[in-house]
């Protein structure tokens, strides 16, 4: 391999950090969804990288499952956002705080 495992893992850690940053800062629901996608991709990258260096097929398998599950998750998440949008005409998560205390 031309590249080292560490490098891939570091890229993945960077993406994980960015994703968590996005989730704890952004207020727009769709943007938060972006952040989640970034975190999931970071994990997938990690998985495939480890799988390549072992080498073992499990990494790719999990990545495949993870991608498919992310698709399902995003479908449900988006529909929730659409319901929220119909109700409030707004998708600012920080404004949804009737439940508190």
């Amino acid at each position, binding site marked *: 391999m031309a590249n080292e495992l560490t490098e891939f893992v570091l*890229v993945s850690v960077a993406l994980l950090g960015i994703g968590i940053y996005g989730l704890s800062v952004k207020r727009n629901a769709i943007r938060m969804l972006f952040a989640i996608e970034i975190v999931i991709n970071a994990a997938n990258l990690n998985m495939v990288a480890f799988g390549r260096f072992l080498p073992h097929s499990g990494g790719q398998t999990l*990545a495949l499952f993870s991608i498919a599950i992310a698709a399902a998750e995003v479908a449900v998440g988006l*529909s929730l956002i659409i319901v929220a949008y119909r109700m409030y005409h707004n998708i600012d998560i920080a404004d949804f705080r009737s439940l508190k205390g």
Partner: protein
Amino acid sequence: MADAAFLALSVITIGSAIAALELRSLVYGSIALMGTLGGIAGFFILLDSPFVAMFQLAVYVGSIAVLILFTVMLVKRELIFKKVEDKRRKFVGIALMLVFMVALGAVILDSGIKQITTDEPAVDFREIGDDFLTYYWPALILMGLILSGAVTGALVLARRVDEENGQRVN
């Protein structure tokens, strides 16, 4: 050492990830997200996993990103370009991100992970298929159930019918 392709992909992936979150317009943001997802697919190719890379492109770039793009276009124009943020929250968030990266990076660099190298050839993707059918087959069934559940759930939620009159008519 990392080669040029790796460096370029890293820059594209991380850069467009930041752009996806920071660009003012949600539309450009989702296009930048496609960049990140594509970059990850590139990494997969670098890691000799073309099958996953194709899947990534097909599912993510092809469907998820498009789905998001459509949703973005569904909502009002003002919302697409409005970007309200609490500056203080942002600084704290950036601090958290940096601490996160430094801490996790330090742990990873500190560990013996550097010694893991391999000269063996990559896994043949036919092996993945084998795995699926012999070892992971219950998981595949569950995967099917997940998709069916997600689709019915999402459809019910997103439906508009008889929303207004409220009560279900028996």
